[in-house]
Each structure stands twice: as C-alpha cells, then as structure tokens.
C-alpha cells in the first residue's frame, strides 16, 4: 500500500478549519501580548502568532499545490530564530540591570 | 526686467548690510533703500497706465509643474510698489536715532522685508505670491521678537501663529485651484481667473482666502493679534506692519479673492462688508478709550483698514479706487504718526497720554507735523485721507445706504479720538516728562518732511495716482461683474 502524501493528509481537514484554528491561535497570541506583564510570556505570545501564520501558510500551500508558501515558512522560522536571539539578549540585559522582567517596572520613560 | 530689479535690489542691499554692515549698517541700508526708490521712480516714469501689466519677467521655477518665477507691474502694483519703496527709506531713517543692538541684522531684516513685499505686490504667479506673502512675515517676526518690548515673546508668537494659520488656508485654496487648471496645470494668477468654478467651490474658496487676508489686515473678528503686536514691536517694525504689510491683505482681496470667486461675492459679499463695517465702528470706539498712544493708533489703523475692505467688497469703481488711494494715504499717515509717537517716547519715556502735555510750547514744529498727519488721518479736505475716505464712503453708499451711514461714523469717531490724542499730548501744561523736550533732529526732520509733502500731494492732486490705477481697476471690475 502506498503511503498517502503529506498534502493529502493535510487536505483531509477542510481549509476552513485551518483558517479558524490559526486565527484562534493568532488572537490568543495578540491577547497574550496585550494582557500579560511578563516579558518572556509576551515574547512567547508573539511566537505563537508567528506559528499560527506558519500553520496557515502550510495549509494554503497544500490546498493550492504551490510550494512558495512553504519556502516562506522557512524564512519565517529562520528570522524568528534571529529575533529570539536578539530578544532574549535584550531581556537578559534588562534582568541584569533590574533583576526583574516584569514590564510594569519599566517606567523610566514617561508616557 | 525692471520688476526683477525691484525685487533683487533690496535683497542684495540686505545681504550687503548683513555681511559688510558693522557700524556702517545704517548707511548701507539707507543707500540700498534709496537706490530701490530711485528704481521704482524710474519705473514709474516709464509706466503707461493704459498698457496693463508691464516690465514683465518670467523664469521657469519648477519646470515640470508649470510654476514660474513671474512678476510684472500693472497700475495697482505700481501704486503699492511706490508706497513700499517710498516708506522703507523713511523707516530706515527713522531708526537712525536709536541704538538698536546688532544694527547690521536689524537693517538687513528691514530690507529683506522690502524685497518680499515688493515681491507680493508684483508677482503674477499664485504660488510665488503665497511664497512672498509668507516670507514677508519672517523678517518682521524677528524684528518684533528680538528688538520688541517686554512682552514681545508672547505677543509676537501669537502674531506669527495667527498669520501663518491664516495663510495656510490660502495655500489649500491655491493648491486646489492649481489642480483645477487644465492640461499640465499652471499657477499663473490669470489662469485661475479663467477657471469655470461652481458656486459651491467658489463659496469655500472665498472663505479660505478671506480668512487669510482678513487676518493679515486685520478685519474683525480676526484682529486680536494686532494691537498687542503693534504696541510691543520696535517702531520700525510697527511701521512696516501698519504701513505696508497690512496692505498685503487688501491687495490680496483685490488681486486674488474678488476675481477668482466673483460668484461667491453675491452670496457672501454682504457678510464680508458687514464684518468690515463692524470693525470700523468697533475699532473706533475702542480707540477712544485708549491711553497708550501707540495702541490708539493701532486701533485707528484697524478701523481704517475696515473701511478699505468695505470699499473693496462693494466692487464699485469708487470703492476700489478709494481703497487704493487710501492704502497709499494710510500708509503715509500711519507711518508719520508712529514716528511722532516714537519721537515723543524717545524723549519722555512714556506713551501714556496722561503723562504728556504741553509739547507745543517746547517744540512747535513737532506739533505742526503731528497736526498734519492727524488731519490726513481724519480726512480733512486737501489732505491725503480725504480723497480716499470720500471715494470709499461713496462706494459703500452705492452698495447700501445703511452700511454707508455706519461706515461714515469712522470720520466722526476718528476726529474724536485723534484730536483728543493731539490735545492731551500737545496742549495743556507741561508735565514732568515733557519739561525738557528737545527740538527735532535733522534726521527726524528728514523723515517728516517727505511724509508731509506726500500728505498734501495726495490731498491736493490725487489724480496722479488715481489715473495710474483706473484702467487696471476698470478692467478688473468688468471681469468681476461678468
């Protein structure tokens, strides 16, 4: 018996479901950014947003039989990794200076 | 070609004054201003009133956009150029008696201002007009803000923001008009005349222009910057403001507002005239209550310009011609009066009427000059103010009798506050301040004598100037009424 190809497996689920799932993940990410006070958690929420995009792109890609979105996903993953490196460095730098990563304590700048 | 010279001479003279001035700044500035006057008089001798716009100059400025550096002189421009070039040397001369700090900068700014003013009065390109209109503001702002009185910062700031705010409306209107012109667009003022605009568009354009010019003049209710600014500015700046810059507003009404939005005039002209007339009465009444001479003349100037605007909005030949000749006369009178107030202030350190008195006994000559300027302002027959006010009132009467009657109050009220000022400062017993009042110096006489000559010239033989402007005005009116 031949193994079903990955696009076939992906297409077992209707496109609309992918759309709803990734939108839900995306909204959860947005809410996380807006509500949480801990820099790391906010950061994780951003990652969640990015991954919801990845999921969506893969789903579209399979349904359209077009590889370009999968290439895009690789780019997103690579860039997100670079961003994580810089982001964590900034958070570590702040932790060294203030011993906290709660953004509520960041009030040196008025506004 | 003459036009470009007229714009460039003061600019170059200003730069020379600024860089080479030093202790001789005032001499260089005076020489520059006189050279400019000579050029203007020469242009006047060559000027043919019937020939329309002359001495044209055109240079493509922003080639792709059809914006060019274009200027020429017609009757109305000629009159205002003469006024400007006549007054500036006197204004420079009037500053000789003072020791202003940084004289090089001070006199250079006056000359830059002259260049911008001549630019406003001669340009035939709408954007260039806006450009000069704005640029004229900068030197006078610095003059007032650096060399002004105690409250200068607040006051000049208000003045600056107010007038820039107004001219921004004009900018919107000009940009809009520019994009209405056919083809690759043109910003020549005459191209704007030829546009077939809907009444609705003309309506808002009318107000956009009106606000810009009304703030500059100023008309009621946009006048609140004016008395403070006039009072706080050093006298040369006040003279520039009242004598010439105010005319930019009236000129704008004639050159831009009326011909571009003639249809809106039927709809809104009445409102504009009523505002002007309110300004006349309001300004006069407040002037009566003033005790500071400079403030008093500021309010009187506000009242007079209201009458000019009313005459312009009446769009009659009399009203227009009156406004033009009155611009000339008012420029001369108001500069004379501010100068006399400055003389009094420099000798007594006060401008308050209650602290003055009896100056006639000390310097009869000053009080004679003062009287002549006053009578010119009050519009006594045979003095400069008479012709203008007479024609203006005739124009407003043609428009509407009631408004004419209200505007006529200006003569009566004007006589009240001006003569009261004269009586309080010149007659009566001398006060502590005026006891040691000194005779006029040579340079002061050099300012007052030309002004006096002009007061009588305009009063006795106004045709010199009226004939110069009449063909242009007639042409304009024919255009507006069609």
């Amino acid at each position, binding site marked *: 018996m031949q193994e079903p190809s990955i696009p076939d497996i992906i297409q077992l689920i209707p496109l609309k479901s992918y759309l709803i799932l990734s939108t839900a993940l995306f909204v959860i990410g947005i809410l996380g950014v807006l509500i949480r006070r801990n820099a790391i958690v906010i*950061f994780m929420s951003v990652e969640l947003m990015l991954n919801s*995009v990845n999921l969506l792109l893969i789903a579209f890609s399979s349904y359209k039989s077009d590889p370009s979105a999968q290439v*895009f996903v690789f780019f997103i993953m690579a860039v997100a990794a670079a961003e994580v490196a810089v982001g964590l460095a900034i958070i570590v730098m702040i932790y060294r200076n203030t011993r906290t990563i709660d953004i509520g304590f960041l009030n*040196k700048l008025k506004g | 070609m003459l036009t470009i010279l007229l714009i460039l001479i003061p600019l170059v003279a200003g730069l020379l004054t600024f860089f080479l001035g030093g202790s001789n700044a005032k001499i260089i500035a005076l020489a520059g201003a006189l050279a400019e006057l000579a050029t203007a008089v020469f242009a006047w001798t060559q000027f043919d009133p019937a020939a329309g716009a002359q001495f044209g100059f055109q240079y493509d400025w*922003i080639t792709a956009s059809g914006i060019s550096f274009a200027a020429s002189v017609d009757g109305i421009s000629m009159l205002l150029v003469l006024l400007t070039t006549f007054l500036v040397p006197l204004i420079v001369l009037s500053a000789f008696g003072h020791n202003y700090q940084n004289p090089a900068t001070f006199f250079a700014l006056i000359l830059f201002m002259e260049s911008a003013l001549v630019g406003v009065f001669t340009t035939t390109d709408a954007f260039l007009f806006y450009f000069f209109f704005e640029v004229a503001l900068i030197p006078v702002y610095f003059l007032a803000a650096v060399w002004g009185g105690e409250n200068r910062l607040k006051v000049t700031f208000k003045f600056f923001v107010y007038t820039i*705010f107004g001219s921004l409306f004009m900018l919107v209107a000009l940009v809009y008009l520019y994009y209405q012109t056919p083809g690759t667009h043109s910003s020549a003022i005459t191209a704007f005349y030829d546009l077939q605009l809907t009444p609705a568009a003309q309506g808002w354009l009318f107000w956009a222009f009106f606000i810009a010019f009304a703030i500059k003049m100023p008309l009621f209710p946009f006048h609140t910057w004016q008395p403070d600014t006039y009072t706080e500015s050093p006298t040369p700046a006040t003279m520039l403001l009242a004598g010439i810059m105010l005319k930019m507003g009236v000129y704008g009404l004639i050159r831009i507002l009326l011909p571009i939005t003639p249809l809106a005039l039927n709809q809104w002209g009445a409102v504009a005239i009523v505002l002007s007339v309110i300004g006349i009465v309001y300004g006069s009444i407040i002037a009566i209550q003033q005790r500071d001479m400079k403030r008093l003349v500021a309010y009187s100037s506000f009242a007079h310009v209201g009458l000019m605007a009313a005459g312009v909005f009446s769009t009659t030949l009399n009203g227009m011609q009156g406004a033009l000749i009155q611009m000339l006369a008012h420029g001369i009178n108001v500069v004379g009066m501010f100068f006399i107030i400055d003389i009094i202030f420099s000798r007594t350190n006060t401008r308050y009427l209650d602290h003055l008195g009896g100056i006639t006994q000390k310097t009869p000559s000053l009080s004679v000059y003062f009287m002549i300027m006053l009578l010119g302002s009050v519009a006594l027959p045979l003095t400069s103010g008479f012709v203008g006010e007479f024609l203006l009132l005739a124009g407003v009467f043609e428009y509407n009798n009631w408004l004419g009657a209200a505007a006529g109050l200006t003569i009566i009220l004007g006589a009240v506050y001006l003569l009261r000022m004269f009586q309080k400062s010149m007659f009566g017993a001398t006060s502590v301040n005026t006891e040691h009042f000194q005779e006029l110096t040579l340079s002061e006489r050099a300012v007052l004598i030309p002004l006096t000559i002009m007061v009588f010239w305009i009063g006795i033989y106004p045709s010199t100037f009226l004939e110069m402007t009449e063909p242009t005005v007639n042409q304009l009116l024919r255009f507006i009424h069609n």
Partner: protein
Amino acid sequence: MYPIILLSFLGIVVLFLGFAKSKAILLPATLLFLAVALVGNFVEWNQGTIIYFYNMLAVNNLTLAFNGIVLVSAFMIVAMTRGFQDDDEAQPAEYYAIMLFSLVGAFMMIGFENLIMLFLGLEILSVAMYVLTGSDKRNLRSNEAALKYFLMGAFATGILLFGIALLYGATGSFTLTGIQAYIGQGNPSYLLYGGLLLVLIGMLFKVSAAPFHFWTPDVYEGAPTIFTAFMATIVKTAGFAALFRLLSHSFTGIYDYWWITLAVITVLTLLVGNIIAVYQDSFKRMLAYSSISHAGYLLIALTAMTPQTENSILFYSMAYSVATICAFGVLIPLAREKAMTGKPRETYEAFNGLARNNPLLAFVLTVSMLSLAGIPLTAGFWGKFFVFGSAAERGIIWLLVVAILMSAVGIYYYFRVIMAAYMKEGDTAEIRVAPFYKIVLVTATIITLLFGIAPGLFTGLV
C-alpha cells in the same frame, strides 16, 4: 542591487576591522563604504526597471532615489558618531556593521517585488534597530526602550505576517504582480480585504502611525540620540517607500476600499502627533511626536494615490530626513552632559541662549525647525506643498483642511525651540563641536535651503 551586495559584504569587513588595535580607522572606513555603496547605487540609474533574483527585487529610478536618500541620511548620521570613541563600553565596529546591515534591509523594503522580500527587509532593518536601541547597556532608559521596541516590533511583524498569509490564501501568490492580477479578475475574496487590512496595520506600526504609535515616544526618548536619528529617518523612509510600493503596485484596483481606512488613520495620526507634541517638555519626545505627525503628512500622499504621489513621498522623505538629522545633530552636543539619574539634558531649556553660545548650531536648528514646520524657503515647505497637492488633485478637501490646521499647530511647537535658542537667556558654558560634525550639519542645512529655493533641482532628477 549593487548596494545590497556591497553593504552585506562591507559590513562583514567592518566587523573584521574591529579587531584592529586602533578604533580610529572604523569611522573613515564606514564612511568610505557608504560612499562606495552610494556610487554603486547610481550605476543602474536611468536603465529602466530591472528585475533581479527571479522576480524578488526590482530596481528603477524611484527605488534608486529612495536608496539614495537612505544612504545619504546614513552617511550623515554615521559621520556624526564620533562619540563612540570616548565610551569604553561601546563597541563601534559592531554598531557600524549593524548600521550597514540595516541599510540592506531598507533597500530590500524599497525595491521588493515579492512579499517575502518585504518581510525579510523589514526584519533585517528592525532587528538591527532593536540592537542599536539597546546599545547603551548600563542605561535603564535605553534598556527599557529596546524591550518596548522589540516587543512592539515583533508584535507588528506577527500581524504583518498573518496579513501576508491571508493575502496568499486569497491570491495564491506573494508577488506584487500576482496580487494585482488577482484583483484585476474582479470579485476578490474576503480574505484579501482582511489580509490587506492586517498588512497595513503591520506596516503602520513600523512607520508609527496612530493609533499604532504608542511605542514611538518612549523608544525615541530612550534610545541613544544618534540611533534615534537613524530610526526617525531611515526606518520611516524605507517604511513609506514599501507602503507606497505595496499599495501602488498591487492594490490600486480596490482603491475605493482602502482609501477611506487610510484617510481615517491619517487624520488620527495628524491629530495625535501634533496635539500631543504641544504638551511635551522634552525636545526628543517632541521630535518623536513630530515624527508621528510627519508620518501623517506622508500618509496623505498615500491616501490620495495620484500619479504625483511617488514624487511627493520622495521629496517629503528627503526634506524630513535632512531636517530631522539636523535637529538631532544639534541636540547631541547640547545634551551630552548627563546628570546623576542618567538623564541627559533634553528639555527645551537645553536650548536656552544657544544663539549666543554657538550661533552656527542655532542657525542649523532654526532652519531645520522651519523646514519641519513647512515654512517657505525650506525644503519642508515644498514637501508639504507636493503632499497637499496630491490630496487636492484627488479632491479630498476635508483631509487637507485637517492637515492645514495641524500644520498650524506644528508651527507652535517648532517655534518654541527657536524662541528658546534666540530669545531666552541660558548658561554660558561653551559648546564645542568638532569641525567634521559642523561640516555635516552645514551641508544638511544647505541642502534644506537649496531645495527650498529651487525644488526643481530635486524633482527634475527623478
């Protein structure tokens, strides 16, 4: 295309130069590299539109001109960075390299033909800016600014990406022409509208348009001033070039759908930027709000989207960048001294008596403020003029009226600075400025005045 390759490579060279004993070579080397890139940029001038890397990147006169603005701005800013040498903590080689790399991102944004390039360019530029913002490591204000910038930037990227994914879902393509072709077929899917909206939000975050502007004042204030200048000019220019490219190449077919959204955002941006700027005491914060307001003016041109728009944006970006560099350039020597709290002198009072202390700086400051306020005889005036012109051509008069009112408000806060410099008495401590620094400021001032008097010189170029 050449500057992308050149700067990627030369950036690495700068990093290696950092190993040299003397740090003195870094600044001239970086300037030289920028000059090389500038020359390389204009090699392709007037050769029409060239497409590179399998439809990833386009080069034409417009993109080259934007590249030129970015490069010249960068050149001026780098030339003003002498301060690094005094600071032991600083790592100049890294800073210069990061600046060069970030320019590569800017070029990619300016010339992108594929949304992948837009994303990559944006990220290269942004990540570099996060690092530079936090480069003053011991300073809490810099730390805080970096974190805020980073979190908000990453957040905006997420939104942008989701928008791109939706656009892809609707059109099946990441290329500008593909999207345009899809819209040309008519009857676009709702995914397209949602995608466009999210992409717009993501981009507007980056160019700090209201209501997505809230990070701007804090980040601008906290970042080291030299990098604030970098952010305010290069990121904004590249951001608007990208927005223009996106909207004009792909979405003109559904103009009726997005113009009103953009118009509302424009009005909000103008109101927020100008009105809040009035209430600022800190010059740097004022400039942050002023940069928001200038984003508003640029958005007017985008909203109108007429054939004039590209030139309007180009001229406005140039005028704004040059004037902003001057403004920050004057602030840097004035604010140098630091109080105990690590708070430099950045209020308006810092300018008191500047005209007497250092007339040259005062003059430069005045011209830049006049230009930002849009007073005639400065380049800023023509920038506003062209922008307002495109709105008038489209006939959106109400937008113009708001813009006019707000530029009048703008005059108020810009003039406060001039007044402080000229009319207030201040301390008499002499302000020393290096000759090279002076040359940069004077050149920028001359550019502002030159294009203010003869804007045709610039508009004739493109």
